């Protein structure tokens, strides 16, 4: 057997030393109605495209790259064969293509072998009317090639503030209509996904007796567990959300277990911490095991663009090895280290996109975060690696982002702000990064 100490530094940082093996059956959880649902849920927000990226990606020219239907078919087949039976999509995902692609992929399998989750994604004011909501559900059912939706969600409750929530679901009578649809069986389970204004969450919980939520989708991971409020004071900690739901016996569905991949790639300090527990476990596996450790979690969603992601995540949860208290403590220590770097809490969900002025918001943030993770953000001009780091930073920026899509061209109109589920003050961040980049370029000119 290979010694656990005998790994290279690169392996140590980036991945496992051995390929993930699926050793047993997928861990299943039961909801209140007795449905058996896989602990790993298949998220359809980051579907693969033919050019090898994911469909919500930010790269130049993506608008012409179609989703790779063959790859999705293959992923869905593989997922179903390995026990994954929960598929989460939305009419808004992948520039509106996600439902259609998932409908096609799932149509090859018996309808009773999987659960479909989709959402009432009525974000635009012209979609607030009840008629528009009805049309959205009808379109979803049609695109997914089915007669009913297993799990239907009010999409991103609280995003844009309580007033928006009220306009989208309460004042227009949408919520009453959905209760009827649930009674009629076109919707089997009704729930909501929560992002943003705590008032909206509290309102939904207070009205649980009235609406009987079958489930609730929340953002949970070992950073947000105790520190979501630190990242942004308007957030609620995941621990609070989870415990509130558990107290009401509402099963929790987990989104962003990896924070858009940010919990899968770390700098040396954090990676060391995780690897010290078990050098053979991948960095990402800890995030899944963390969520799975909590019994009221019904399923953990993951947008698995590449098959390697799918295999690895299935392996992690087949079956789940719950974390011990000491492992939970170590993850908390890791979370505190993660919070110390300068990264921006962007999960690349692309809800802010498209920016009407063409700024590549997630691309800019991703470029920044990558530099943070790799410990090479050129922020300290006294550092001996500063000029090298500056060069890398600027080269990567220019290679990945067209100059007209860089922060310099943000006009500060603020149209993106209400769309961000992480509630990042995007224009402010853009201005900061703009000044930062301008200074780097100035240094480079005089170097």
């Amino acid at each position, binding site marked *: 057997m290979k010694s656990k100490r005998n790994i290279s530094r690169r392996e140590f940082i980036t991945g496992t030393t051995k390929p993930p093996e699926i050793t047993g059956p997928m861990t299943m959880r039961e909801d209140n109605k007795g449905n058996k649902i896989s602990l790993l849920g298949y998220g359809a927000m980051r579907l693969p495209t033919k050019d090898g990226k994911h469909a919500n990606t930010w790269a130049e020219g993506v608008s012409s790259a179609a989703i790779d239907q063959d790859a999705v078919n293959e992923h869905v087949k593989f997922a179903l064969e390995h026990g994954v039976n929960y598929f989460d999509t939305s009419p808004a995902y992948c520039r509106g293509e996600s439902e259609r692609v998932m409908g096609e992929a799932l149509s090859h399998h018996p309808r009773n072998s999987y659960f479909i989750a989709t959402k009432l994604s009525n974000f*635009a004011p012209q979609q607030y009317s009840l008629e528009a909501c009805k049309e959205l559900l009808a379109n979803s059912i049609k695109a997914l090639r089915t007669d009913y939706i297993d799990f239907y969600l009010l999409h991103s409750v609280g995003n844009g503030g309580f007033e928006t929530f009220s306009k989208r679901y309460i004042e227009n009578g949408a919520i009453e209509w959905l209760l009827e649809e649930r009674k009629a069986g076109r919707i089997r389970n009704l729930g909501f996904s929560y992002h943003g204004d705590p008032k909206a969450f509290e309102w939904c919980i207070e009205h649980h007796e009235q609406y009987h939520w079958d489930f609730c989708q929340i953002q949970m991971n070992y950073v947000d567990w105790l520190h979501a409020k630190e990242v942004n004071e308007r957030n609620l900690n995941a621990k609070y959300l989870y415990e509130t739901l558990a107290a009401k016996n509402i099963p929790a569905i987990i989104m962003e277990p990896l924070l858009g991949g940010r919990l899968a790639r770390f700098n040396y300090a954090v990676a060391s911490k995780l690897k010290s527990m078990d050098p053979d476990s991948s960095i990402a596996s800890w995030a899944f095991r963390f969520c799975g450790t909590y019994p009221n979690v019904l399923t953990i969603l993951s947008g698995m663009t590449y098959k390697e992601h799918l295999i690895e995540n299935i392996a992690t949860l087949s079956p789940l090895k719950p974390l011990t208290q000491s492992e939970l403590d170590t993850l908390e220590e890791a979370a505190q280290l993660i919070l110390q770097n300068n990264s921006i809490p962007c999960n690349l969900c692309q809800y802010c996109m498209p920016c009407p002025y063409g700024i590549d918001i997630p691309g800019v943030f991703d470029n920044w975060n990558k530099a943070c993770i790799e410990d090479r953000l050129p922020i300290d001009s006294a550092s001996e690696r500063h000029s090298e780091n500056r060069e890398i930073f600027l080269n990567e920026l220019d290679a990945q982002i067209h100059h007209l899509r860089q922060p*310099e061209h943000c006009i500060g109109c603020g149209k993106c702000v209400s769309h961000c589920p992480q509630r990042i003050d995007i224009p402010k961040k853009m201005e900061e990064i703009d000044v930062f980049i301008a200074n780097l370029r100035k240094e480079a000119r005089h170097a």
Partner: protein
Amino acid sequence: MRKIILLIRRLLALSVLLGFTALFTGYGLKHFVFLAKLQFWPAVLASSAITLGVIIALTILAGRWYCSILCPLGILQDIAYRLKPHNAQQKMPAKIRRISRLAFLLAFLAVGFLGFGFSWFEPYGLFGRIATALSFTLTAGIAIFTLAIWKGRVWCNWTCPIGTILGLLSRFAPFRLKIDSSKCIGCRKCEKKCRASAISIQGKGGKIDSALCVQCRDCTVLCPKGAIGALLASPETREEARPAANENAEVIERRSFIIGTAAIGAALIAEGADEKIFDGGLADISAPGIDSRNASLKPAGSRSIKNFQTKCVGCQLCVKACPNHVLRPSKRLKDFMQPEMAFDEGYCTIDCAKCSHICPAGAIEAIPSSQKQNIHIGQALWHLDRCIAATEGVNCTACFRHCPVNAIERVEGPAGAMIPKIDVEKCIGCGACEHVCPSRPMPGITVKALEQHRQ
């Protein structure tokens, strides 16, 4: 000894050409910019007495060494000439050649003194344009190169005004190459090989026309008797050797400039994804249109548009060196291929004076970068009918935030949103506002050029 001189000459030429290659590919800006400053006509324009003194003295004493060790276009032609063996006698119609040389020299000076720039037939500028692969001069480059393969230094002795000037200077150079008639056996090897068609052999002896000879010195080694050299014990006997009367006049194809005017990218306004329904994707973008200014903008250090146009040889070195991608060659005839400023890819940053430090011709005079903020090269103008804050009421702060001299204030606008107000005293015309303005197809704020730069 002759071999050693030839070797040194070749090595020098090769290193100069390599240096220029590095210079124009942008890898050796710091180290090789001195080569540009050693060029003859740029030195005339920049009035750099030392460079001129050295070149002129060298030419008066020893002939056109400049043409074979310093002029990049000349070296390039020498390399081309080596690609094909030359054994036939090179005969050129001397009369037509003389007329041609004179005509080009006069045209060059006339165009220059009339204020259209000395950029037309100046060899260094032409080399720069060829090296930076400027589309229309690439044709000229290929023409010169091809001509050089077959006939050698045709460009240099038929067209090049600098060649003509240096030819005049080297007419009676004491150390020019000469044929020792006491040694010459009349084998005509040198005559057949001469890339400048400068040698004419008559019987046993002959003459090298020092106005045409570019000092490649190949003949000194080629001669089986060692009869050719700059220092001869017994000088040539025939001072005035006339070329043969019946020459096969050859028609030299003149290169023609094809003036291509590239249509500048069709502008598309960013798709107004005002109320989003789907996530992800990128809105279409288009580069800001390039304003057809009152006159072309010239960088700080140029003093005035006129000064710039008079001195610039259009070598494109500043275009290559500009870290902000602001400079590009003009497509108009009157200042053809001389650089001007445009802000679709960047703006002229306040801390940068790179172009002023590399210009070999003094078209952009060196200024300390700390002075840049005090030099007004243009004046921002706001357009009511374009600015999206005025036309669409968009809350835009782009120009206001990016102005490096705080010349922009925001005031109440007609559509509710705040609009920019420009302080003309502060504005230096750097183009930051024009570059970041989101209005399409044309920016809502543009820079007007100042004829005379202000300090």
